[in-house]
């Protein structure tokens, strides 16, 4: 088991290094001169040359790479040209907002996706199953940005039930920052009004973000449940007179949960990626919106920072799932 864990961790490190190679290459194929960008539009040629020397951009490419990697190792992602602040600081500032949204959406995806998948396996090939299938395919096909706009139109503009965008009402001050997740912080401060406000703002973006995830959790759970429900031990349990719903919800569901768990881990990383669209629609000040606004401004240090941060999260999620898998599935444990 220890060998397995060490192996997985080393492999994750290697993949992270690979991703760093990609972001370095992408930054260096840019047709624009990074020194000129960093010096600003009004810089004289001398100023650009100073910046070039200062950033080590006059050095050979491999030396630049070594510098890039060692900077990253110290948590230095470079500086944003637009805000002139360190990208690392800004990432730390924006990430909690994104994480809050992703956690909420993931909760929604699991709470709705697992029961729907279970029920649709029980009612296989009946009208309910077909209805759920249409719903699941829609989850993949609906453009997140358009779905968001339609929800804003319906629930914010027409029905006036929920706010359109942002994290809080303009009039209400943010709660004292502890985790920078407004839902958690307002609870910690015991401020129910802010909590309700933050929650109302999070509902629509969380729904949009969770939809594709919900759909794939549903599909995996349904496929697994269909298979498990025909297993011998289910037939045996039924023959022993265990109540039908207990069989489905306890015996079958537990055994169908492993692949669903893997899907949840995979989806966490994908969701972080989709925040690029969802945060843009809802003006949610997280890393997705940060990446988009930086990309439009041609400021690509922050974009690479976000790419690396999302990649790191994705890899860690996969690692955790792999290890959990090894731990939860007795057959894998025995195989090692």
């Amino acid at each position, binding site marked *: 088991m220890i060998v397995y864990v060490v192996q997985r961790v080393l492999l994750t490190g290697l993949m992270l290094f690979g991703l760093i190679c990609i972001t370095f290459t992408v930054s260096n194929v840019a047709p624009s001169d990074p020194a000129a960008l960093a010096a600003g539009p009004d810089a004289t040629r001398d100023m650009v040359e100073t910046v070039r020397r200062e950033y080590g951009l006059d050095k050979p490419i491999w030396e630049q790479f070594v510098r890039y990697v060692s900077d990253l190792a110290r948590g230095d992602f470079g500086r944003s040209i637009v805000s002139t602040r360190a990208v690392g600081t800004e990432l730390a500032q924006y990430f909690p907002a994104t994480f809050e949204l992703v956690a909420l959406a993931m909760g929604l995806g699991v709470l709705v996706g697992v029961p729907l998948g279970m029920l649709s396996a029980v009612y296989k090939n009946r009208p309910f199953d077909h209805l759920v299938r*249409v719903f699941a395919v829609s989850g993949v096909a609906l453009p997140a940005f358009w779905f968001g706009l*339609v929800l804003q*139109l319906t629930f914010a503009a027409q029905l006036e039930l929920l706010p359109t965008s942002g994290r809080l009402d303009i009039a209400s001050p943010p709660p004292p920052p502890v985790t920078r997740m407004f839902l958690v912080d307002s609870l910690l401060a015991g401020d129910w009004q802010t909590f309700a406000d933050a929650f109302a703002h999070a509902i629509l973006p969380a729904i949009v973000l969770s939809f594709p995830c919900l759909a794939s959790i549903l599909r995996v759970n349904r496929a697994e449940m269909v298979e498990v429900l025909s297993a011998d031990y289910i037939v045996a349990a039924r023959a022993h007179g265990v109540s039908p719903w207990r069989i489905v919800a306890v015996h079958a569901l537990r055994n169908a949960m492993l692949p669903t768990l893997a899907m949840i881990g995979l989806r966490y990383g994908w969701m972080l990626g989709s925040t690029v669209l969802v945060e843009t*629609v809802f003006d949610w000040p997280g890393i997705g919106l940060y990446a*988009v606004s930086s990309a439009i401004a041609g400021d690509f240090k922050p974009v690479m920072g976000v790419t690396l941060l999302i*990649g790191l999260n*994705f890899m860690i999620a996969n690692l955790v799932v792999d290890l959990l898998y090894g731990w939860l599935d007795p057959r894998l444990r025995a195989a090692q």
Partner: protein
Amino acid sequence: MNTRAETGGLARFREEHAAAFRQLRFYVWTFARSPSSMIGLVIVAAFLFLAAFGPMIVPYPDDATGAMNLSNRLKPPSAAHWFGTDEMGNDLFTRVVVATRTSLYVGLVIVIVASTIGVPLGIAAGYFGGRTRMIIMRVTDVFLSVPGLVLALAIVAALGAGILNGIIALSIVWWPGYVRLVEAKALSLRGESYVEAARSLGASQFRILAVHIFPNCLSPIIIKASMDMGLAILSAASLGFIGLGARPPAPEWGAMISVARTYMPTWWWYAFFPGLFIYLTVLGFNLFGDGLRDILDPKSNQG
């Protein structure tokens, strides 16, 4: 008398290929039996029709590339303008239909480039195994370790906005999926007895790969390519929406929604119809791919 010879030829052809015809009839029957596959087929056919003939049948062809008709701006849907008009007074129905061709082109290029890179690499990794496989799969894993849209965003940020750069970026992030898919298939084919037989008869490596391995990998590739058409169109539209893909006034669904966003909620139709077309297109290719899976690869049916 000529016709008689032809019918004779046709009859012989049918006889010689009876098995293939039977197989084909079975495919058509299986496909047509499933309502969702047929919906997919209808949508895909309509999409291809609009892409081919759209520019010829639209009511206001001049509006396609962005004319100016300010007296007519932001009109709601009506008999004259089915989808309403945009901020320049252009007919939205015209622009949405003409954009179909852009999407088809974007989807096709991405899928073709991605499969041309990914499929040979996947076959090589799966068939040769060993160090070749390790290197190819590690590189693939690195590309798959970050969501495609984010990496594409990073690449477009470096290359500069534009539809061509969007296509380049999406192709770069799209090929690893094909490597994954084909590698697994080629790995399982490697031990098949007909491959073994070809090898022992002294067939060259290239011949084995091209004649024995590749054709047997085709079903999953076709299924994935069909689904990817929709997803590639969706991703390109996403880049357009962010403001890094096609540049308005070029007719592209995502870019149209990007502009239309600022006119929400009062002028809702401007964003609504392009988005509906994206949704239907992606849905159509998805259902169509699902239908293809049912006939080409029935064992892997995921429900």
